[in-house]
């Protein structure tokens, strides 16, 4: 088999293995629980008919391995079971909430990059200066800052005291109806529908959650960027570029270009953690995204929902990781000859 073909096959195999492990974790979550599976699936007092049906459906009287395999097939096929609370299909619930989460993360990452990259670059170029120390201190503070605390602090100042921001009640003011779903983003859909009131409200609701997340992302990114750029600044070819008399702007570009792979890899590694942070932020702001759903499910011990949520986040992170790898390969081919 040719080289690219083998690589793809290997990656696919890896993906399958990884998915199975993630599914196994979800499976273990159920097994760990004290609730007997029958109660889990059928409710507090399942009738004999229901019991029999469940045993048949889920293979409850078969060995654990078989159960796991059936479970895996079911989960990977997208069937996450039904929520104990609402009785709705978990998969459906998650899917509906996905755009909210994606939107929040997207804006936050963009804003966070806007904050973090220039700060990190400036700190690296001015290493040892007072500004550098402030930046490093700020970065550490951002790393130590609990997301919920930052969210609450921002709410306290801007919502309660200054009355500039709206209440943390989701993606749009409670008195308004959300726009019809085109993209799933309330903000974009309002714009598309030219509904200025809804647009304004959606935008207002976005500000604090996005800012919270962006600040946290920015802090970590700043430290990461600073480190990567510092490494570049110490290379021989950077010193040579300086010797050639290149301007500060050009040197920044050169340093960034060299540091980009490291920064990208670092961001990639951070992504899973970011999903966790996003969930907490969603929780505080009642955002209505996947994260809030998952956390709510955990509080209420709605295990099918929890399982589905965990599986989804794992799958999402895996997907993003794969995509990031693709981007990295393309960039390497196009931009460098290293």
């Amino acid at each position, binding site marked *: 088999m040719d080289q690219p073909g083998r690589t793809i096959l290997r990656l696919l195999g890896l993906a399958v293995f990884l998915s199975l492990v993630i599914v196994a974790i979800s499976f273990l979550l159920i097994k760990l629980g004290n609730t007997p599976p029958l109660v889990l699936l059928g409710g507090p007092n399942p009738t004999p008919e229901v019991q029999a049906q469940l045993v048949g459906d889920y293979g409850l009287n078969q060995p654990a391995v078989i159960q796991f395999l059936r479970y895996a097939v079911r989960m990977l096929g997208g069937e996450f079971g039904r929520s104990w609370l609402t009785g709705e299909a978990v998969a459906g619930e998650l899917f509906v909430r996905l755009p909210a989460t994606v939107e929040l993360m997207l804006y936050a990452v963009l804003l966070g990059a806007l904050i973090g990259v220039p700060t990190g670059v400036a700190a690296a170029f001015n*290493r*040892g200066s007072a500004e550098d120390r402030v930046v490093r201190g700020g970065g550490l503070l951002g790393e130590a800052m609990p997301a919920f605390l930052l969210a609450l602090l921002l709410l306290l100042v801007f919502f309660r005291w200054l009355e500039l921001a709206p209440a943390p009640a989701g993606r749009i003011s409670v008195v308004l109806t959300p726009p019809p779903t085109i993209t799933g983003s309330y903000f974009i859909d309002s714009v598309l529908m030219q509904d200025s009131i809804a647009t304004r409200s959606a935008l207002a609701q976005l500000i604090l959650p996005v800012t919270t997340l962006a600040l946290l992302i920015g802090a970590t990114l700043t430290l990461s960027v600073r480190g990567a750029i510092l490494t570049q600044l*110490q290379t*021989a*070819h950077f*010193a*040579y*570029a*300086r*010797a*050639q*008399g*290149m*301007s*500060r702007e*050009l040197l920044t570009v*050169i340093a960034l*270009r*060299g540091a980009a792979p490291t920064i990208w890899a670092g961001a990639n590694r951070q992504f899973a953690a970011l999903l966790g942070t996003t969930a907490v932020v969603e929780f505080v702001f009642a955002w209505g995204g996947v994260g809030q759903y998952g956390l709510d499910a955990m509080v209420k011990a709605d295990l099918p929902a929890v399982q589905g949520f965990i599986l989804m986040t794992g799958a999402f992170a895996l997907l993003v990781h794969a995509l990031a790898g693709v981007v990295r390969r393309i960039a390497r081919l196009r*931009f*460098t*000859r*290293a």
Partner: protein
Amino acid sequence: MLLDVQDLRVERQSRAAVGMAPMPLALNGVSFRVVKGRILGMVGEHGAGKSLTASAILGLLQPEARVVGGRALFEGQDLLRMSDADLTRLRGARIGFVVQSGHTTLDPNTRVGAQLIRAQSVHRPIVMAEAVWRAETIMSSMGIVEPRLRARAWPHELTPSAVQRLVLALALINEPQLLIADEPTAGLDITTQVQILDLLYLELRRRRIGGIIITRDLGVVAQYCDDIAVMYAGQVVEQGPVPQVFARSAHPFTRALLASMPERLAIANGRTYGGPLPDAPDGCPYRPRCDEATERCGVAPPLVGAGVHAARCHFARIGAA
């Protein structure tokens, strides 16, 4: 006077461990001069401070090191007191820099021709056609064949010889007044070394500009430099015209250095090494080169000694303790 360095002092900060004495200055009063049209060779052992001097002058010190005294006057201005912005304008334009090991220092992500163009555009607004022409011209004069083709190459695709020629081209493309070459032939094989040095020498002479060649090889100084500055432990311990210093060195360290290179010394002193034999030697054939030749050597010397060790010389002492 192209470059007048006076009493340059550089301190290198290191995290002194608790209780240790403070570190001595890395550069402890370096003074030398470069005259327009002449080439200064800077020699010294590893760690003597040669590269550090160049970095200090160009304002390229690493953050742990800083200038704590002295002046470096270039075209009337003190480089050590110039702002980084002004220095940036000088670097690569009025002062050219030739690095060692070009293959680790050239930007690996930009094509060779583009780097030559960038070296120009960084210092003045350029017209593309003119910049390209300049780039190709200088590549030719550096001995790079097929410049147009070569211009599209990436640095790692070039041979070490071509890399150093490119480095030389980058240093010269903006017509600097002063060229600083830091061990320009480190790591190259002997033939290439000679080629690059010859090229460097030619360009410096042709353009009538001043140059500093930093090297550990006295032979290079002997062959290519007009003046020599000998560095030891962060100071210039002797400076002067090459013939003078080589013939009658004032500092013991210089003498020790020279003592290790008699052949090159001879070359510098104008005596040929090898070369055509005298056609009808009267007396000893080595007489022209010999330090200890006297009147007696007009007469062919006898073979002194017998057995394993012998020499044909009036003053040969075989078996002496």
